[in-house]
């Protein structure tokens, strides 16, 4: 289906050119040279494909087994099935263009085809992944020339199987948390990449040991394993795996039909919410006016509203009651201006105790489960603990680096501006306020990270004292990273890297201070004597200085506080 008309577009283009030729002003404007725009975005996905090629090559070189390389490809493709499912569901039901498409006189079935076609196009990079992975394997084992031709149908079939799996999941199990699964997979991938020196060898050994099982259990392996048939005749029974693959492929039609039948995109109309009454004394609780409709939302009488306003109750912060110990300390520490900023950034109140209780509870559960599992299988225990530590650390980091509404984007006049900038809130005051919010949570962060390091030490047989020290140092670095993240927060709503003139000094600054931060962090990590604490302190200072220098540029108006889209 085409939602545009090439003939009309050609005619329009010609008309515009003619109009420009006729008008001297338009001719002059046309001649104005626009600076060339560069974007690294198109390189992102091909880089991932290249990374897969590297992973497959590394797996085969280290283990000497092509089946291990295939298993790496299979795991990769399996993970992408969830990403594709999430993409499919988002494109079908939450895409930005749906609001416009539903207003146009287009049948739901056509909108469905249009959206599904977009997903198919997006999934072509998965085909490229499979081709590159198989190509790397073929090169590695020196596959004869004629057999290279077989790689294309294998990759296409595996890609089709991936699509069929995504369609099946989207049609039958749309409620599963694909977004969460995709995020966890992405974060795990990044974690493995960052800690490849430590995690790489055991993971590769695991994949090598269970390569056959992985290729048989995970659907993409059913087809990609056909590659083994090309290498040795003893792998011929692998062809039988085409049977389950064929069965899954056969479900694609039914899945599409099921999705199409239930596809009726329309504007979501929510029930009107009830009135929000500011905190009042129990004897002053306003009552709802009588309504003819029995299920009408709670509404307060205008006379009562007037009374509430004149009593100034609406001016009291909504979080003035029910503060826990930490929140109360933080509130008392705030200056009056910071209290105003707190209301702006966290209108429902800044919670500390409840989220940290959840973090520490999850940590305790994760550790308990990991140690229970380790009695049966040490490797399963280690994996569970690793996963629990990653999840808990991310949760803790999210709480510590929370910025509330301060950096929410507002779109107006074709640009996006952060909320704080629209209300004239200063760089210094906002950074002070947010840093205070982080600082007050450091004891809880330290408890959490020391718990994490103690649990890790138990597995790695490190002394507890060293583990505690590492946990404490990690807390200091996480706190220092608040300065770096604040700079990123401010930078993300500006055009500070839009031109070479602005980007080069900023990049230099980030490389200089960021490099120093990493070096100091590394020094503090590996050195155990008291000098390591000096490195810790210097790293904090370094991050602070970076933020201060950026703040000076910000205040001197070296860039705009808005992201200006490219022409």
């Amino acid at each position, binding site marked *: 289906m085409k939602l545009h008309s090439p003939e009309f577009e050609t005619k329009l283009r010609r008309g515009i050119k003619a109009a420009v030729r006729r008008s001297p002003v338009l001719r002059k404007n046309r001649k104005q040279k626009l600076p060339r725009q560069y974007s690294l975005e198109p390189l992102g996905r091909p880089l991932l494909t290249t990374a897969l090629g590297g992973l497959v090559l590394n797996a085969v070189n280290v283990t000497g087994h092509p089946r291990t390389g295939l298993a790496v490809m299979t795991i990769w493709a399996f993970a992408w099935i969830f990403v594709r499912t999430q993409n499919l569901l988002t494109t079908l039901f939450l895409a930005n263009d749906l609001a416009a498409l539903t207003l146009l006189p287009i049948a739901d079935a056509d909108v469905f085809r249009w959206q599904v076609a977009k997903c198919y196009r997006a999934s072509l990079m998965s085909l490229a992944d499979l081709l590159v992975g198989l190509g790397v394997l073929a090169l590695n084992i020196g596959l004869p020339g004629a057999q290279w031709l077989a790689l294309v149908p294998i990759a296409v079939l595996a890609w089709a199987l991936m699509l069929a799996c995504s369609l099946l999941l989207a049609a039958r199990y749309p409620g599963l948390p694909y977004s969460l699964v995709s995020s966890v997979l992405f974060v795990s991938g990044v974690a493995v990449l960052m800690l490849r020196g430590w995690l790489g060898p055991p993971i590769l050994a695991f994949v090598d040991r269970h390569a056959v099982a992985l290729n048989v259990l995970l659907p993409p392996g059913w087809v990609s394993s056909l590659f083994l048939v090309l290498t040795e005749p003893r792998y011929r029974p692998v062809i039988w795996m085409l049977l389950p693959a064929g069965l899954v492929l056969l479900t694609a039609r039914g899945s599409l039909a099921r999705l199409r039948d239930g596809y009726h995109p329309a504007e979501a109309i929510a029930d009107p919410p009830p009135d*929000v009454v500011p905190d009042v004394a129990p004897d002053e609780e306003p009552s709802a006016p009588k309504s003819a409709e029995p299920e009408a939302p709670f509404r307060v009488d205008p006379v009562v509203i007037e009374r509430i306003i004149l009593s100034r109750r609406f001016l009291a912060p909504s979080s003035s009651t029910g503060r826990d110990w930490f929140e109360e300390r933080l509130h008392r520490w705030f200056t009056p201006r910071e209290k105003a900023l707190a209301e702006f950034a966290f209108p429902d109140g800044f919670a500390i105790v409840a989220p940290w209780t959840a973090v520490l509870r999850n940590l305790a559960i994760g550790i308990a489960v990991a140690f229970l599992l380790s009695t049966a299988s040490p490797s399963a225990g280690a994996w569970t603990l690793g996963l629990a530590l990653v999840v808990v650390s991310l949760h803790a980091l999210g709480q510590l680096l929370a910025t509330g509404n301060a950096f929410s984007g507002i779109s107006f006049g074709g640009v996006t501006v952060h909320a704080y900038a629209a209300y004239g809130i*200063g760089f210094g005051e906002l950074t002070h306020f947010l840093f205070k919010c982080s600082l007050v949570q450091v004891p809880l962060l330290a408890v959490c990270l020391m718990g994490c390091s103690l649990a890790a030490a138990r597995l790695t047989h490190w002394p507890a004292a060293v583990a505690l020290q590492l946990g404490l140092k990690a807390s200091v670095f996480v706190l220092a990273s608040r300065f770096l993240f604040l700079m990123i927060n401010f930078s993300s709503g500006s055009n500070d890297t839009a031109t070479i003139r602005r980007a080069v000094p900023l990049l230099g600054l980030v490389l200089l201070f960021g490099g120093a931060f990493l070096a100091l962090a590394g020094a503090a990590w590996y050195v155990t004597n008291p000098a390591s604490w000096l490195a810790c302190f210097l790293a904090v200072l370094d991050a602070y200085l970076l933020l201060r220098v950026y703040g000076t540029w910000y205040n001197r108006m070296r860039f705009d506080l808005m992201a200006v889209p490219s022409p």
Partner: protein
Amino acid sequence: MDIEFRDVSKSYNGVPALDRVSLRIDPGQIVSLLGPNGAGKTTLLRCVAGIAAPDRGAVYLDGEPFRRDRLDLRRRMHFLPDFPFLFPDQSVVRNVAIVLRLFEADGDGAEERVLALLGDFDMLPLALRRVGSLSRGQAYKAGLIAMMAADPEVWLLDEPLASGMDPHGIDAFKRHARDAAKRGRTILYSTQLLDVAERFSDRVCVIDNGEIRAFDTLETLRERAGDKDHVLEELFRHLRESQA
């Protein structure tokens, strides 16, 4: 507060939005910014608010060069975009309260100001309603009430007359703006409605292709045009003809 542009130029991605703009706005005036789409009206407002940084020249407020760390100056003005930033899960009065506190205007008498404004804009029955459940015009009124209750010295408004407000709301806005100007407040607003601008401004600033084509009182513009009616329409027609 005096607002002065001295030789201000600003471009986006190489496309000029303001080109060597110099003008001075005295306090106590209602100034309408007029010009075709993309002429530079919103950029001019953003430069005063500190959101856009001039590539060249500077904005002076009360004779002092404007920098973003001059919070004393920034708190004396309020920028209201055509889609104001409001907290959708909070009620109208909570949104107003947050703005009042940010502008340190929540002292004695704030409650009466807020009540009067809610009444004038027909928003009293909606005062405890979540902003996210309001129509665009009602939400804009909420933003406007918050700004007016804070009563800053400079009101910067982007297209307030095309914000979805009903005629009663527009009338209330004009009345309050006129009263505020009498109290020495400066109201700088952009609009495309020439007939409204003719009746509701002390000075008119016409921008085209980033250049100021006219910045005068309506009387002066009328005199120049030979006392013609609809002087702004004439001015725009003249602009188009000179470009063609």
